[in-house]
């Protein structure tokens, strides 16, 4: 466990560090340098492009990436990324293991998830009204495709092995779903790094948020593999 290094704003600027959603007192090993940020951003973009291509094929619609950001947020604010702690959402959640570990979460408002299920199952719009076994299976399959597409793109770029878990499909409060990922991260850090992508179709039928939450070791390993940062 490294000690916390408190660094002032001027120090950060002087040393050319970037704080995406910076706060005072972040851990030294959670601070990304400019080059490292670029490496991670490029990797995340490759992964997301691949994942959204997978989604577009499955729902047979053109999917547009509306925003893409890499953020560092205090753990207690993580659920704000998906509408606030009490907001009822449908989350498709999976973890990944292998050379690095982390969490992948695809979050939709329930009515949007239902519309996506209709697209996946070839049903007329408005057919799906609840999340039963068949509907959960359809979203789990979507999670499989998106998760493995994302991980394959990153793993291929870095010649690493990353394996997705079977997805879990959950209808619950956003805070309760985020707890699953955040609980692991807060063992090592007060902040959560998250790659956040919002996407959708022109008619807004398939809008959603795609979050990738790497474990603390993930970023270190990614950067070692990319050759930007030497192993400590």
């Amino acid at each position, binding site marked *: *466990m490294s000690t*916390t290094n408190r660094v002032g704003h001027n120090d950060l600027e002087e040393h050319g560090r970037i704080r995406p959603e910076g706060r005072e*007192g972040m851990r030294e090993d959670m601070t990304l340098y400019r080059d490292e940020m670029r490496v991670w951003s490029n990797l995340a973009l490759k992964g997301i492009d691949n994942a959204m291509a997978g989604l577009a094929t499955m729902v047979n619609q053109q999917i547009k990436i509306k925003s893409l950001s890499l953020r560092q947020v*205090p*753990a*207690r*604010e993580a*659920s704000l990324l998906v509408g*606030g*702690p*009490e*907001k*009822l959402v449908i989350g498709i*959640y*999976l*973890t990944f293991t292998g050379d690095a*570990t982390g969490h992948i979460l695809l979050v939709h408002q329930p009515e949007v998830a239902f519309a996506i299920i209709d697209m996946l199952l070839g049903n007329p719009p408005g057919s799906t009204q609840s999340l039963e076994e068949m509907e959960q299976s359809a979203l789990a399959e979507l999670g499989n495709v998106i998760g493995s597409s994302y991980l394959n793109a990153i793993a291929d770029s870095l010649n690493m092995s990353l394996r997705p*878990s*079977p*997805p*879990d499909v*959950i*209808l*619950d*409060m*956003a*805070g*309760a*779903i*985020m*707890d*699953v990922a*955040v*609980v*692991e991260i*807060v*063992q090592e850090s*007060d902040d959560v790094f998250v790659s956040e992508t919002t996407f959708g179709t022109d008619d807004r039928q398939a809008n959603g948020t795609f979050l990738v939450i790497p474990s603390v070791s993930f970023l270190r390993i990614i950067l070692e593999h990319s050759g930007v940062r030497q192993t400590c």
Partner: protein
Amino acid sequence: MLAECATVESMLSPSSHAAVVVVGLGEVQVTRDPEVVLASFGLGSCVVVCIFDPLTHVGGMTHVVLPSSGNRSVSSTYPGKYADSGTAHLVRGLEGQGAVRSRMMAKIAGGAAVTRGTMPENLFNVGNKNVVAVQAALEREGIPVVAYDTGGHHGRSVWFWVKSGKVMVRTAKNVTIQL
């Protein structure tokens, strides 16, 4: 112990003069203000510990994330992160505001398993482990658990009226119960 009851919104109407203070993940809040309602939203595997002294009306809440601090240092930003150190921190805070430990009573809620198994291996069943760790920490402090709503598979939001010691829990299924 549990009963269906009025909506939380009706109990927090402007005429009630209630002031809601949100206790976020890993936070500890202690108050002796009788108008304060401590609240925590969207709990999954996390556990909320509410402790009050019915005589002085001092009450507090901690939002526990993990069972044990082990040999980790506890960050000042998240003093309630662990069941063991977080509960102790809450009790010391209450004593600092004039509550007497022999009169303290606890109510706890949370500790759900919202996934059906997808999670890192070392965190399997972490909700249940949090509940057990909170119960053990309260027992060490000699504080009885007078009501609880724990476990299950759905998220919860919790409101705690420190003046009366009343706790309301609303689940993701939109069921509200009083503890």
